[in-house]
C-alpha cells in the first residue's frame, strides 16, 4: 500500500513491521507537501529539519525495541500551538515573525509520544472564522473542490489531512473549529470535554470555550492522538485532574442498547435537506448496529449563537490585548508616541474579523452594557448546559448534522459575517456547555462531504470514538479521497 495514503494506525503497523522507516516516510511526505500544497495553502511553515531529526530519533527508539503506536507518526500542528523556535503566527500579521520561546503541552506530549512534526498549519486569524479565509497567510482551499472553503478555523489542518499530505493534525475548537472543517473535508475530528486537554501554549481566542483535539481520517486515529494529547496539566488551572480512558480499547465495544437522541432543533429550518437525509441514513446504520433512537429537544439552542457571539468576543477582546507591539510580534513603523504605537501596531496587525470581534467584545463588557450582554449570555450558557444535562438523562448520545450546508464557495460569505456565524449553529452548543463532540463522514452532496455530529456527556470521549469507529467498520465514506490527492 502507498505510504502516503495510510492512516496513522496503518503507519504504526508498517513502521513496526519495518516496511519503511520514519525518515523515509517523512521525506516522502515532505516532498508530497511541497508538490501539492501550493494548490491548497494549508501550511504556514514546513519544519523539515525538525521533522527529520524527530524521524531519526523515532527510528532509533523503534530499533531499540520501543513500540509506541505514534513512534514516527507524521503530524502537523495548527499554527496557534506554540512551538519552540518556530514561527507561531495564529494566522495573523501581528504575530508575523514570532518564534515561540516554548512548546505547548500538546506539542510536548505528542513529541514525547514520538510524533514527527512536518509543519505548522494555516488557520483563520486567531481561530476566528468558519472558512479559513481570514488568515494573513491567505485562504486555504478545500481539496474536494479548490473553489470552495475547507471550513475553519482549523482549515489548514483539515485540508492537509483530507489531501493526504498528512495522516493527522492537531486543531482547536472554540465554536466548531475542529468539527466543522472535518465535516466539510470528509474527516473525523473530535473536540474533547473542556478541561480534558491542556491549553498551556495554545494561544487563546476564548479561554472558556477553547479546546484542542485531533483531526484525522478515522476515529481510530483520533483515539490514538487524543490518548497522547489529553490528560491533566498543572500549568492549566482549568485542566481537569481525572483519569484518562483507554480510547483505543473502547473502540471495539458493541453498540447494543446505545440510546441515541435526535434533537428536533437540529433538523429544522436552515438545514440543507440533502444533508438531513444523509444524517438519517447514518442513524439507520447505527440502528442496525443495535442503537435505539428517540426524538429529544434542546429548547435553548436558538440562543446559542447570540450567546456565543457575546462571550467569545468578550474573552477575545481581553485575550488579544497583549498583542500591543511592545514585547513581541508586529510593531508599526516609527511610532511617534505610545498611543500611536498601540493604535497603529494593532490597527495594522489585526485583520478585519479579529477587529470586529474585539469591538463587539469590548462593547459587551463596557460599563452599562455588561449586565445586558455578558451576564445575560452567561445565563443562556447555563440554560444550554442544563438542556444537555437533562437530555443525557434519557439518551447516551445526541446525533445530528455537523453543519447546515456543505462547503461554500471561497468569498461567498465574506461580506455577511452573520451568514458565516450561522454555519456553526450545531457545533457551538457543545463549546458553551463544555461537552465533547465529534464529527464523522456520512456521505456526499454533489461531491461535497457531509458530516454527522455526535455529542456525549462530559468526559465520554471514549463513547464518541467507539460509536464513530463502529460506524466506520460498516461504512466507507471516510475512505473516500478527493480526486487528485
Amino acid at each position, binding site marked *: 500500500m502507498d505510504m502516503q495514503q495510510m492512516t496513522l494506525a496503518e503507519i504504526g503497523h508498517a513502521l513496526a513491521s519495518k516496511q519503511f522507516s520514519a525518515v523515509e516516510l517523512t521525506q516522502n511526505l515532505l516532498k508530497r507537501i511541497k508538490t501539492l500544497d501550493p494548490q491548497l495553502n494549508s501550511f504556514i511553515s514546513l519544519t523539515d529539519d525538525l521533522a527529520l531529526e524527530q524521524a531519526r530519533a523515532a527510528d532509533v527508539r523503534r530499533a531499540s525495541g520501543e513500540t509506541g503506536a505514534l513512534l514516527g507518526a507524521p503530524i502537523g500542528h495548527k499554527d*496557534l*500551538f*506554540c512551538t519552540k523556535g518556530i514561527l*507561531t503566527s*495564529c494566522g495573523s500579521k501581528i*504575530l508575523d515573525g*514570532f518564534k*515561540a*520561546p*516554548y512548546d*505547548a503541552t500538546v506539542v510536548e506530549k505528542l513529541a514525547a509520544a514520538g510524533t514527527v512534526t512536518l509543519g505548522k498549519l494555516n488557520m483563520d486569524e486567531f481561530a476566528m472564522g468558519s472558512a479559513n479565509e481570514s488568515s494573513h497567510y491567505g485562504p486555504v482551499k478545500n481539496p474536494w473542490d479548490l473553489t470552495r472553503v475547507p471550513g475553519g478555523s482549523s482549515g489548514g489542518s483539515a485540508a492537509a489531512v483530507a489531501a493526504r499530505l498528512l495522516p493527522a493534525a492537531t486543531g482547536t475548537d472554540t465554536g466548531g473549529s475542529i468539527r466543522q472543517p472535518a465535516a466539510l473535508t470528509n474527516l473525523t475530528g473530535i473536540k474533547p470535554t473542556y478541561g480534558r486537554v491542556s*491549553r*498551556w*501554549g*495554545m*494561544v*487563546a481566542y*476564548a*479561554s*472558556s470555550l477553547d479546546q484542542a483535539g485531533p483531526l484525522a481520517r478515522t476515529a481510530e486515529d483520533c483515539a490514538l492522538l487524543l490518548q497522547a494529547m489529553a490528560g491533566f496539566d*498543572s*500549568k*492549566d*488551572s*482549568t485542566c481537569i485532574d481525572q483519569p484518562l480512558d483507554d480510547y483505543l480499547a473502547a473502540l471495539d465495544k458493541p453498540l447494543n442498547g446505545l440510546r441515541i437522541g435526535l434533537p428536533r432543533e437540529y433538523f429544522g429550518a436552515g438545514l440543507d435537506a440533502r444533508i438531513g437525509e444523509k444524517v438519517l441514513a447514518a442513524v439507520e446504520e447505527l440502528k442496525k448496529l443495535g442503537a435505539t433512537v428517540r426524538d429529544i429537544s434542546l429548547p435553548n439552542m436558538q440562543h446559542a449563537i447570540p450567546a456565543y457571539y457575546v462571550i467569545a468576543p*468578550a*474573552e477575545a*477582546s*481581553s485575550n*488579544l*490585548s*497583549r*498583542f*500591543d507591539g*511592545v*514585547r*513581541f510580534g508586529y510593531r508599526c513603523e516609527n511610532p511617534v508616541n*505610545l498611543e500611536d504605537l*498601540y493604535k497603529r501596531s494593532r490597527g495594522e496587525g489585526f485583520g478585519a474579523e479579529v477587529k470586529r470581534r474585539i469591538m463587539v467584545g*469590548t462593547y459587551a*463588557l*463596557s*460599563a452599562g452594557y*455588561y449586565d445586558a450582554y*455578558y451576564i445575560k449570555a452567561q445565563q443562556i450558557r447555563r440554560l444550554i448546559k442544563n438542556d444537555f444535562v437533562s437530555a443525557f438523562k434519557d439518551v447516551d448520545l445526541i446525533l445530528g448534522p455537523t453543519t447546515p450546508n456543505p462547503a461554500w464557495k471561497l468569498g461567498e460569505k465574506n461580506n455577511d459575517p452573520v451568514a458565516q456565524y450561522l454555519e456553526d449553529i450545531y457545533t457551538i452548543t457543545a463549546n458553551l456547555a463544555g461537552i465533547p463532540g465529534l464529527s464523522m463522514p456520512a456521505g456526499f452532496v454533489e461531491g461535497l462531504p457531509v458530516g454527522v455530529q455526535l455529542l456525549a456527556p462530559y468526559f465520554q470521549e471514549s463513547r464518541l470514538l467507539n460509536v464513530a469507529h463502529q460506524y466506520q467498520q460498516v461504512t466507507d465514506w471516510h475512505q473516500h479521497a478527493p480526486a487528485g490527492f
Partner: protein
Amino acid sequence: MQWETVIGLEIHAQLSTRSKIFSASATTFGAEPNTQASLIDLGMPGTLPVLNAEAVRMACKFGLAIDAEIAERNVFARKNYFYPDLPKGYQTSQMELPIVGKGFLDISLEDGTQKRIGITRAHLEEDAGKSLHEDFHGMSGIDLNRAGTPLLEIVSEPDIRSAKEAVAYVKAMHALVRYLDICDGNMAEGSLRCDCNVSVRPVGQAEFGTRAEIKNVNSFRFIEKAINHEVQRQIELIEDGGKVVQETRLYDPNKDQTRSMRSKEEANDYRYFPCPDLLPVVIEQSFLDEVRATLPELPVEKRARFEAEFGLSAYDADVLAASRELADYFEVVNTVCGDAKLAANWVMGELSSLLNASNLSIEQSPVTAAQLGGMIVRIKDNTISGKLAKMVFEALAAGEGATADEVIEKKGLKQVTDSGAIESMLDEMLAANAEQVEQYRASDEAKRGKMFGFFVGQAMKASKGKANPAQVNELLRKKLEG
C-alpha cells in the same frame, strides 16, 4: 464655616510570598531588570496563570486578624487597560467577589483613646511592572520583575476624620501585616503603598462631599502632609465658590502639593469580567481553621496584655506593641530582669535613642535584649547606679563586653557599698573641705539644705561615681551633724 474631613484609605500590601501570585518567578526586590520575569510574567501568548496557594493563605490570615468574613467562594477578574508595564493588557484582580469581606481595625489615637476603623474589603491582585524613563534616549524601558507580585488591596470605610487618624490607621495596618508576617512593610521599596480618598463637608452634614483620590503616597509623613494639603485645597476651593471634582491626584513631596492626574471623565472603563483562566477559589472551613491556628498574638491583644500583666501605661504598652520585633525584645528584657517598668523605660529611652541616632531597626540593635536585661539586673541589685548604667549601656553598644557584668568588671564600675570604705573616703573629703564644714555647721536649716548638695557632689567625685548614693547621703548627714 466649620469643615469636617472624611478619609478612606486603600492600602496595597505586597505579600511576602517567595514566588509570584500566578507564576513561579522569584519576588526578590532589586534584581537586575527582567531577570525575574518568566513567560507568564511577560504575557507570552499561550501562557496561563496558576494561583499561588501561599498568597491565598496570607489573605485568609489577614481576614481572620481583622475579624472579617472570608468568602467561601471568591473570584479573580480581569481589569482591562493598556499600559506598557502591564504585559497582558489586563491586571488579574478581584472585583465582585473578593477573598476578604467586611472587618475592622482598632487604632490608638494621640489622646490615648481607641477608634474602630471599618474595613470594607481586601482582595488579591497582581502588581504591574515598572516603566523606566531615564537613560533610554526618548524611549522608555520596561522592567517586569515586579509584574505578578502578589498584592493585598485593603480598602477602608470612610471612617477616618483627620490626617493624624489616617497615619495612625496606616501605622496600625503596617504593624498588623508585619505581625502576621505577610508583608515586610518596607514603604521605601513600595511593599506598602497607600491611596488616600479625601473629601470635606460642613460639620453636621450627613452626605459626603466629592472626593479626590491621592495616589501612591509612600511614607507616614507624606500621608499626613498630602492629606492636610488636600483638605486645605478643597476647603479653599469651596469657600472661593468653586467645586471639588472627582479626580485622581498625585502628591509631590518636593513641592508639598497635590496636582491633578486624571479626572473622572478620563478614567478608564476597566471592563471587569471573571478571569476565564482561573477557577473560583473555594476556601474550606478546615483550611481556615488551620490558618487560624497560625495567628500570632495581635497588636491589640498584646497592648492589653502589657497593661494588665505588667502594669504598663496605655502609652508605653502602645509604643512597645507597635511592632512585633520591639514587643519581642521588650519581653526578653523583662523576662531576664523581672522588672517590666524598668525594662520599658530602658527600651523606650536609651535603646530607642541609640537606634534612632544610628538609624538602626530593633533587629539590628547592637545591644541584645539579654544584655540589656542583664544590665538592669545589676541596677536592681545595686551593683551599679542608674548613672553608671548608662556608661555600661554605651560600652555594650560599642561591643566592649559580652555582658554587663564583664563591662562592670573590666571598667571597675562596681558600686561601692562597703560602709567602712565610704566612711574613710568621706573623712578624707571633709578634711579637705574643712572651711565649708565650718560654714555648714554654723548655718541654719534652710541654708544647710543647699550646702549638703555640695558635699554629696564632692563625695561622688571622690569615689568616681561608684559610691552608693543612698549610703553616701546617710553617712554624710551623720558626719556633718558631728
